[in-house]
């Protein structure tokens, strides 16, 4: 197919529809990346902890949703329409608690050895994956979707946008806003930023920096849990589902510039768009390779990522 005749055979109306739908598929990918990266933007971006088990917290959130969905369909079928809202909260809570425990037992002892955190959390991810396999089995599970998430939105005859995609996108936007408010407007966010910038001073002014670390890590994990719940709307879950995303997620955060939430958003957007545009021309996997290579190249020129503050060391 050559670039000159690749539009042949389509009417102008068809083309508009294709572009809108193709553009939306890029936006869905953006939502996926963003949801995954938000938790990590706190854990890695702010705290500089390399949490290789981040994907597993996503899986935990997803399984919480699946578990609730099974419970509801079996015992209180009337509730099927509404359970999802509670599932999101439950996913956050479960992931938060597991995250809290992991921080308490493990991560808190390794803050000064970032590369060791990487290995230790990799171990955590293996253990969580295996435990999930014990509990839920290795095969794929999926949650029952309430009716209002099914179907698609058809503003014209030729445009067809799935509702669950729209839902995922709005979740990503809402979560981003919440994280923004948490980090920059809340008391907790102030403490996190203070601790990140100068731990000794933060301790001196009465911030319990250990407690801040613990809740930050747990909140980051909780957000991953919510992402997991959101993911059940577009796909099924298996114990290793989350680990497939971990490299992507790290790249989004690193590429955006660790420590910058805006950078994370920009990076998720540009990587997602680049990938879905390239996928139109190349095969899926090669588009991935291409995007990865471009990112690695850009990171070599700008190791600090897209958005970075000039600081005085």
């Amino acid at each position, binding site marked *: 197919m050559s670039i000159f005749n690749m539009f042949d055979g389509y009417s102008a109306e068809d083309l508009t529809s294709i572009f809108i739908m193709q553009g939306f598929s890029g936006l869905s990918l953006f939502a996926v990346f963003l949801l995954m990266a938000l938790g990590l933007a706190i854990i890695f971006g702010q705290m*500089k902890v*390399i949490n290789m088990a981040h994907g597993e917290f996503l899986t935990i959130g997803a399984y919480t949703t699946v578990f609730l969905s099974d419970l509801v369909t079996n015992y209180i079928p009337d509730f099927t329409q509404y359970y999802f809202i509670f599932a999101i909260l439950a996913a956050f809570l479960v992931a938060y608690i597991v995250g809290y425990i992991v921080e308490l037992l*493990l991560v808190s*002892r*390794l803050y000064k*050895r*970032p*590369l*060791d*955190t*990487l*290995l*230790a959390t*990799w*171990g*955590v*991810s*293996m*253990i969580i*994956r*295996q*435990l999930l*396999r*014990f509990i839920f089995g290795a095969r794929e599970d999926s949650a029952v979707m309430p009716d209002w998430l099914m179907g698609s939105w058809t503003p014209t005859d030729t445009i067809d946008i799935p509702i669950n995609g729209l839902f995922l996108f709005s979740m990503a936007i809402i979560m981003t806003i919440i994280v923004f408010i948490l980090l920059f407007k809340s008391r907790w966010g102030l403490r996190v930023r203070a601790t990140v910038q100068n731990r000794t001073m933060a301790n001196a002014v009465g911030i319990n920096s250990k407690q801040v670390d613990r809740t930050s890590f747990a909140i980051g994990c909780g957000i991953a849990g919510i992402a997991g719940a959101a993911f059940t709307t577009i796909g099924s879950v298996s114990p290793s589902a989350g680990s497939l995303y971990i*490299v992507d997620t*790290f*790249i989004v955060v*690193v590429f955006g510039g660790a420590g910058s939430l805006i950078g994370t958003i920009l990076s998720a957007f540009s990587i997602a768009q680049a990938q879905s545009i390239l996928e139109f021309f190349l*095969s899926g*996997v*090669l588009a*991935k*390779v291409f995007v*990865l*290579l471009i*990112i*690695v190249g850009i*990171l*070599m*020129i700008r*190791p600090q990522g897209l958005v970075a503050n000039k600081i005085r060391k």
Partner: protein
Amino acid sequence: MNSFLNNKITGNKTETISLLILALVLVVCFPLIFDAFRLNMVGKYLSLAFAAVGLVLCWGYGGILSLGQGVFWGLGGYAMAAFLKLEAAVNIAHEAGTDQIKALSTVGLPDFMDWNQITELPYIWYPFKSFPITLLMMIGLPGIVAFIIGTAMFRRRVSGVYFAIITQALCWIMEILFVTRQGWTGGINGITDLRTCLGWDIRTISAQYVLYFITVLLLLICIIIGKIVLRTKFGKLLIATRDMEDRVRFSGYDVASIKVFIFTLAGIISAIGGAMFVFNVGFMSPKLVTIEPSIYMVIFCALGGRNSLIGAVYGTLIVCFGRTFFSEEFPALWMLLMGSIFILVTLVFPRGVAGIVEDYGKPLLARISDRKVDAKEIKPIK
């Protein structure tokens, strides 16, 4: 010999002894204990130990954690596999007789190329027609790749976690490329069914014994090279760079070139292991160069003791034996155990097996030798 080891290579007695013990275990004990099948398995494990030895140099001493050692290990392996595959293809053609083979495929073309409708040998396969050039490629290819990656990263001062994550991404890129370029690499199956090397059948039991000893020999040589490098001023500079990079830079050194050198050396050592793996098992597969095997290589090194070249070998053997044992008996438990090893080795035993041996073994040794000294001293008095 002993004093030569002491002076030139290891620098002290304890290290000489531990090197000799390792040699004893690998050269004498294992061949005596294990049958040919098990010994071949050990040979396979030891080919992985090369990567761990490389990691001790670049991570343990240089502070550069690479999550992409599988890339270099794999390149070495694929280079060797390519050569053996071409030889196998030519042999098959001869065995079948020219008439028959002409009807089936192009003479000397690897079977998977045939399956992928490739009718002529791709240019990148040409160097692997010759054994010397293959050997050169096996070391040169990963060496050059490591050099380029290292130069690009370290010149830009990409380090620590960022380096680790980027190397992990490279691993992923390599896997995708090797899986998707089926016609060139054999795709997801890899390069299989390797039989002879320069006419020597590598599948016979005697060949497997010989290959085991070659693997051991090369591994010991790599360890000794590592020890020699660490003994020089470069070795101290490497530690200095790990601990206080700015001080080294402001003492007039080009820190990037120090890192590039050790990263390249580690890559080449890994590659030799990859090549020996192909000899030992007779195939090469992209599953061996993905993200997970590369992380395993790091854990071999961490478990053995990240600052111990010899420990790396034991670390590899422990994990590999463990995996074989558990995956035969209780596969589910293995993941839990492995996960716990990752955690323990960072949290409780950051110096790994070598650290444990040093903490408990050395005092024991000292006590034994003290007794000897005591005995000697008492004698003249009597």
